[in-house]
């Protein structure tokens, strides 16, 4: 009887400890980080989120009403480059098994559209940090009650990507006119992918209006491993400016082979591979003078938040953040201030608060757009004073900021120049 009583006492004490501790274990905000984790984009998603969680937790956590809650991240590999179904399953798992409170991430539009529907089914806030398709936010305006839980984190939508690219193209064209005093002939080289189609169509229409000649359009496969044929044809066409639209491995192949063959033309546009620190090594240094749209460049400050973020990230992960690392912004600047302001994890209350905020983030200032009818789209506002992104050029082993540098969005707009900009350079072999 004595043994029995002792045994029961121990068990009772253990139960009591568990009951007392349970609320402590439960006091976390679970955030799902979803992305292609074996690829650089997914690594960016995860690293950005880790940095945000570490900073917030180091300060004691998030004030939710009278409670202090820590952030707990849940990693979900979407495998979305290979299989959209895997991405949908990963999101479903976050909702049903991991029971996360919020989700950040996603990269490929086709996958994010599927993930978005699942998150909306569960009424969970999902901040997209990778896909640019405008449809993701058009859905919010069209069916607000269902899709209001989706917000665009990064990048701005593909319509604005086009506008920014044309501003970059104009910068490249102006440099050629100024330094070489020759007419600018543009070759459009776009990988064969759905996202590039509207950009090619727009470029065809806009380039002649910009006072430049169109030399031709080339559409290699997104995974082409040899573009020497295209490069020979481009050189034959007399193009001195190449408008690139690449998100895949062809960006490396094209830059490497064009540099190796010393094709006398400046490459300007979107080359996602050129946004990464590893581009120089991947092209064996042949990617010199490649100009691409960028989000973060070491030494370039958009506002006071840029440098601390970029340098801390670099110190922590030994690389410059790419745009998918904006999961940091999604957690630290989107979610946490709105949770603290509303004092709750209730998605509807957070949505109502978040969609009306205007706030600084390391890449600019975020303000969520409304459509022509005044309906919220949760898309990012583009333009001077908001988000513009950067133009970076590889110059002798490192990427430097070359845009916006005295850029005027319209003839009457004020000039925009971010701290740390340097002049654009033409490849020396263009001058012969």
């Amino acid at each position: 009887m004595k043994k029995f009583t002792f045994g029961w006492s121990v068990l009772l004490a253990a139960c009591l400890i568990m009951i007392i501790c349970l609320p402590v274990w439960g006091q976390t905000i679970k955030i799902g980080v979803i992305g292609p984790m074996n690829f650089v984009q997914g690594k960016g998603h995860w690293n950005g989120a880790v940095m945000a969680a570490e900073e917030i937790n180091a300060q004691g956590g998030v004030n939710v009403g009278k409670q202090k809650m820590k952030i707990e991240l849940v990693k979900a590999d979407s495998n979305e480059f290979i299989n959209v179904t895997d991405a949908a399953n990963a999101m479903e798992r976050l909702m049903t098994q991991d029971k996360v409170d919020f989700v950040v991430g996603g990269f490929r539009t086709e996958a994010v559209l599927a993930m978005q529907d699942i998150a909306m089914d569960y009424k969970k806030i999902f901040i997209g940090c990778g896909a640019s398709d405008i449809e993701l936010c058009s859905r919010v305006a069209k069916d607000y009650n269902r899709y209001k839980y989706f917000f665009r984190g990064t990048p701005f939508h593909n319509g604005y990507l086009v506008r920014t690219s044309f501003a970059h193209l104009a910068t490249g064209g102006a440099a050629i006119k100024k330094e070489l005093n020759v007419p600018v002939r543009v070759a459009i080289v776009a990988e064969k992918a759905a996202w590039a189609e509207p950009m090619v169509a727009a470029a065809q229409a806009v380039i002649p209006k910009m006072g430049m000649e169109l030399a031709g359009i080339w559409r290699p496969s997104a995974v082409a491993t040899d573009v020497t044929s295209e490069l020979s044809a481009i050189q034959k066409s007399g193009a001195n400016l190449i408008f690139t639209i690449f998100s895949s491995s062809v960006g490396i192949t094209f830059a490497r082979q064009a540099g190796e063959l010393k094709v006398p033309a400046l490459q300007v546009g979107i080359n996602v591979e050129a946004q990464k620190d590893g581009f120089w090594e991947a092209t064996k240094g042949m990617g010199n003078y490649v100009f691409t749209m960028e989000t973060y460049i070491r030494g370039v400050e958009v506002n006071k938040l840029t440098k601390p973020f970029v340098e801390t990230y670099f110190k922590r992960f030994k690389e410059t953040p790419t745009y998918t690392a904006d999961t940091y912004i999604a957690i630290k600047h989107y979610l946490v201030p709105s949770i603290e302001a509303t004092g709750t994890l209730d998605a509807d209350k957070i949505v109502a608060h978040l969609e009306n905020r205007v706030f600084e983030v390391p890449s600019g200032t975020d303000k969520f757009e409304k459509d022509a009818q005044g309906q919220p789209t949760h898309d990012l506002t583009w333009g001077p004073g908001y988000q513009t992104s950067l133009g970076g050029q590889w110059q002798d082993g490192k990427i430097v900021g070359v845009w916006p540098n005295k850029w005027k969005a319209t003839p009457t707009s004020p000039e925009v120049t971010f701290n740390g900009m340097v002049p654009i350079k033409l490849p020396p072999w263009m001058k012969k």
Partner: protein
Amino acid sequence: MNIIISGLIMGSMLALLGIGFSLIFGVARIVNIAHTAFYMLAAYFIYQLSIKLGLNPILGMLIAVTTVTLLGLLVYKFLIDPIREHEGAVLIATIALAMVFQEGVLLSFTGDYLTVDFLIDGFFTIGGVKVFYQQLLTFGMVLLAMAVLWFLLMKTKLGLAIRSMAEDREIANLMGMNESRLAMITLGISVALAGFTGAVLAPLTVLNPYMWMEPLIMMMAVVVLGGLGSIKGSVVAAFILGFAEAAVVFLIPQGAFLKGSVALTIMILVLLMRPEGLFGIVFEEER
């Protein structure tokens, strides 16, 4: 000129892959879908040895081809040989094997795009077309590999045995040839060719865990167009498809991405007229 030079380079690379695949199919009726996965492995080995470990690139290539060949022999012994009589099972097993290689590479190297150095930097111009020295070197090495293979098949006892087995397995068996051993040796040669292709192509391509899929389709097209199991057919078909791809890029710049589809369409058209492929009849009759 552009079309000729690009076509020659593309064709020679396809030929090397096609010959290896055709060889093992002709001799042992093994449809090795993992053939281009061995090519991928060799390229990654070279990256690991020459870029990560700083080994001499040529030494790296030799080690890569040897390692991949040994791996191929192990695969034959433990995976293919036990199920060799069931062609469907071999086909599925080698698909699974290729997926295992792919996932292994993804885990080890991640999905990041990687490149290796050219053995010779620079380019020269011929007929207004710029050609990398590395492409010329690759083309030369491919021709050399083909010459060595021709010598091996036509001028050695082993080659005679392989050809005999390809012509009639049963008779070769009755003549005392060890069919399984010969199949293993042939698979070794076939995988070595895939590894060699990966080694010489690595500097000209971008490495990623899915790089085995695209050449697999083109290699199958080469083999089917040339006539299943016909080495001569594979060489001819490889150059036809190589020139077709180059012509598409030059003649339809906006449709450059269609080069694979056009090449496959040519294959279908030829097969409609000659269902056995370009050099399939004699081979099949001999069998």
